[in-house]
């Protein structure tokens, strides 16, 4: 690999433009601060440490991706930040205030969409404003505005089951954003989409993020997705989940799919691959027991390869 491409730069090299951009980000105020965050829980297998000493902060309008092998606790982390799970040590601060439970200052987008199937698209988006105590008309106006932003105003009266996966996730994004949260937490939101829709949604998400005062914390297991979207990537390692490295993505903005082959992109990806190590995970026992014994059922001369 290195013989063919001796010129691959280090992922730490940043162009002046990129360096200046990170400098500007560092000037902004901190929205989310996570200090020595840890999570232990009891399970039938004994006590498990899901997260240990997680330390990082996210600044206003920054796009941070969290990546890591399965079992690194990235979902646990985002659930703690959303207030759906409790941490057992350390603290998580949003605008300096500790997170104790779910709240409208944090929006969450789930992998499984989790739209309310009994509500139309519009009513799904109206859910947050209505909970805030807004009147029906005000909530409806808000919902229309955000549906327009995700391009679904024509589907306002459809039910979620009538939409495609990509469209459902757009509704979920609009539903989370209508509350104008300080931070948008996204838990592998595009994981269930096909490659084409996923690429479209990534571009769309960047567009939204560019135009709205929102900070994004985005969980993914797709390296390309992380590099394409993020300012910084938080790389976790598993058992227990710990921060391995925080990578400042050297790929300049605005991002385009054409950059997937740029040297900065490939260098970053190589680094991520080295960190995450698509390690040959030991197969579970029942999988190991499966040993196909191949018998020839066709004519000896009837070869396909």
């Amino acid at each position: 690999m290195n013989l063919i491409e001796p010129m691959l730069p280090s992922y730490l090299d940043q162009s002046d433009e990129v360096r200046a951009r990170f400098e500007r980000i560092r000037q902004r105020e901190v929205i989310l601060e996570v200090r020595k965050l840890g999570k232990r829980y009891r399970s039938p297998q004994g006590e498990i440490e899901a997260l240990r000493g997680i330390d990082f902060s996210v600044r206003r309008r920054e796009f941070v991706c969290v990546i890591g092998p399965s079992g690194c606790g990235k979902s646990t982390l985002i659930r703690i930040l959303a207030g759906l799970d409790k941490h057992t040590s350390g603290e998580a601060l949003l605008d300096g205030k500790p997170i104790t439970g779910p709240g409208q200052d944090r929006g969450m987008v789930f992998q499984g969409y989790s739209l309310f199937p009994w509500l139309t698209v519009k009513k799904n988006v109206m859910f947050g404003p209505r909970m805030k105590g807004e009147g029906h008309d005000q909530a409806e106006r808000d919902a229309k505005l955000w549906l327009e932003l995700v391009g679904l105003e024509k589907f306002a009266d459809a039910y979620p089951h009538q939409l495609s996966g990509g469209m459902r996730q757009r509704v979920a994004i609009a539903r989370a954003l209508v509350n104008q949260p300080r931070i948008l937490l996204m838990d592998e939101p595009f994981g269930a989409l096909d490659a084409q829709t996923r690429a479209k949604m990534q571009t769309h998400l960047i567009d939204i993020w560019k135009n709205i005062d929102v900070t994004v914390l985005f969980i993914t297991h797709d390296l390309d997705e992380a590099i394409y979207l993020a300012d910084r990537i938080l790389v976790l390692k598993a058992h227990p989940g710990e921060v391995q490295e925080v990578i400042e993505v050297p790929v300049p903005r605005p991002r385009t799919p054409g950059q997937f082959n740029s040297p900065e992109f490939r260098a970053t990806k190589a680094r991520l691959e080295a960190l995450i190590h698509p390690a040959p995970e030991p197969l579970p026992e029942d999988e190991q027991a499966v040993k196909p014994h191949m018998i020839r059922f066709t004519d000896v001369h009837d070869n396909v390869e």
Partner: protein
Amino acid sequence: MIFSLFGRGADIDARKRTFLAIGSFLLPLLVWCLVSYAPFVWHPKVLVTDPGGVDYFQVDMLVDKAMFKDEVANMEQSHLALPVGRPSNPIYLPAPDDVAKAFYNGFVHPPKSTDVPSMPASLWHSVQIIFWGFLISSLIGVPLGIVSGTYNLVGRLNEPFIEFFRYLPAPAFGALAVAILGIYDGPKIAIIVIGTLFQQVLIIANTTRKLETTLIEAARTLGSKNLKLLSTVVVPGILPDLYRDQRILLGWAWTYLIVAELIGTSSGITWFITQQARYQHFDNVYAAIMTIGIIGFGTDLVLGRLGRRLFPWDRTQDRQ
């Protein structure tokens, strides 16, 4: 070819399905007709149309085939007039047309005298018993089930007892119910409540537990909590399944009806049936039993249709 008959439910189109549904009713009817109208199938009795010389025979009397044969032989020997009769089924198996006539007469010409119960009046009384029993049971069972399914603490507190109680046969409480509630409709409604309520709480609690937790989590991140969460997410989320559960439970309530109506003073369709059976009007008995079936099945069909209207987002209904 033969395998195509065993296709999965989804492969059967709507027309075929209607055809099969009608067939499922026609088949038993066909068997009944065969037994009733084809003399060689069963007909163990003889209906006397002319007693001839037999002194104890009367017109319209049913006698055993063997006995009739003996008497014919006796009369031949004593050179008296031979009795005449035609093969017939026992009195407890009337022919379909007799039942149809009884059904028609029961509704169109109900008896005038007040000491004989009429079918429509008896049925109406029974329907009222079911209605009140099911309503009272639902008023307690549905909220309790939803709360038990939502809050683990509540569920753990009451479900073991309910689980125990539901094994106690409802009719066993009959005497107790009469002692407490008198002999009229009170104890009957109570039996239906006892028979339905405990199953209802457990079934609805289970349905509530099956609601996707991510829906509740999503609602919490959107600012919904406590009672709001219950009314805006849990209840609408389980509503189609709750509706289906209620339909099934209503069927169970009907199965307790007959036992319930025997408690205290017999009333409703049960009294009608026992009275008619006492006078050996079995055509009326069959007509009454079938009416119960028609009412039960009919309500369920209507409620099923209504459910599809009420819950257009419910995907599980497409598979029915």
